[in-house]
């Protein structure tokens, strides 16, 4: 009944199987298809979500984003944990 609610740097986020991240040609944007729902991630969220492949740890994702965006690692770590937590609460991601 209780879920593990902590997300640390060794957590490995991945999409729940019925959550589909896809690019919609008609609207020219990325979206997540969920039962009776549609999530429209912004650019920052998308950078994180596209790295949630079930292999990369939070640490790996943060390191990758830190290199790519040349931003402080602690700030990115904070953003990534917050976003992964949020999408896990929404039933989109598992860790």
């Amino acid at each position, binding site marked *: 009944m209780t879920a593990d609610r902590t997300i640390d740097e060794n957590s490995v986020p991945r999409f729940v199987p019925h959550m589909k991240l896809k690019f919609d040609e008609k609207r020219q944007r990325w979206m997540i298809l969920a*039962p*009776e729902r549609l999530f429209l991630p912004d650019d920052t969220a998308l950078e994180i979500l596209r790295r949630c492949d079930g292999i990369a740890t939070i640490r790996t994702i943060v390191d990758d984003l830190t290199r790519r965006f040349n931003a402080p690692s602690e700030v990115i770590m904070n953003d990534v944990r917050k976003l992964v937590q949020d999408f896990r609460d929404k039933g989109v991601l598992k860790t």
Partner: protein
Amino acid sequence: MTNVAPPLALLAEVTYRCPLQCPYCSNPLELERAKQELDTDTWLRVFDEAADLGVLQVHFSGGEPTARTDLDLLVAGASRFGLYTNLITSGVLLNEAKISALATAGLEHVQLSFQDAEAAGGDRIGGYKGGHEKKIQVAKLVRMAGLPLTLNMVVHRQNLDHLEDMIRLAVDLDAHRVEIAHVQYYGWGLTNRAALMPTRKQVETATAIVDRARERLKGVLVFDYVVPDYYARRPKSCMGGWGRRFLNINPAGKVMPCHAAETIPGLEFESVCDHSLSEIWTSSEAFRRFRGVEWMPEPCRSCDRREIDWGGCRCQALAVTGDAGNTDPACELSPNHHKMLQLAEVESDGPPPAFVYRRMGGAPRQKEAQPARDERL
């Protein structure tokens, strides 16, 4: 009319046949006969057109969609066109082989209805003996087939006091999501309004239970809570606005902005047998009638929220005020708001009348006609 945004989802009511008889069914009182159903090829053509038009999701609904023997073909077709497929079912006609065929066809998600937390209430409300137990078996089979599961619970005065147990049932059956929806009063629900209308106290208690459970079950169960309108202060953005997001196609192929739109007199709905889906969506009279903000009367017309709630629900405006073109009376700014609140308070006070069960030919001839007493099943 070429700048109309494309629809997001299609509700495919593939049949009105259903073994259950829920007294809040949103189907029309005059159920069309099974022989008027669209055939397999027509549905497949419709899904192809829907995907081209920009539809992202198809909800297979009814009636009971699994009453159609070609459902797996329809699901496979929709999947092939890249549509996200969702089955909305009572479950009682399903078995392991059928579930496996649907999963193979590419079905992404199952929404299984429960009428109450336990068999006694569930079978009585659904009007189907043995239904509750069967649903529990089907929920397990769905999960064993690896399909994600939402439990759909329609709530009203006769089951709201069991809400905690209903939520527990969803957790026990390994559902990942639960949809708790207060009855919407059109179709059979409107006929049975007095038997279903909860008291304000029941609604407040239910909302508090959902709020607490949502917090407690974070990461375990996702909640979708559809609030009741009759005690509301502001209307819901019904269907996300008329002709903005949703298409509904009935078993005979008529295309409507919502599943209850046929209750509105004077609207002609076009059929997929005569026109393309794109033509109907962008330029049919019925879709244009209440689209956007041009049609709005005051107080909607000058309201800051006009593009948030889009004037609320047209069918509810009709049911309560007699005119589908009025502001939804759920809004406290509507001159008819007090009428709606009063209906709720009067109808929820005192013992509920017997259910008029949903069945072909079962609609009361006159609005007052009610059977003498409730049959317990």
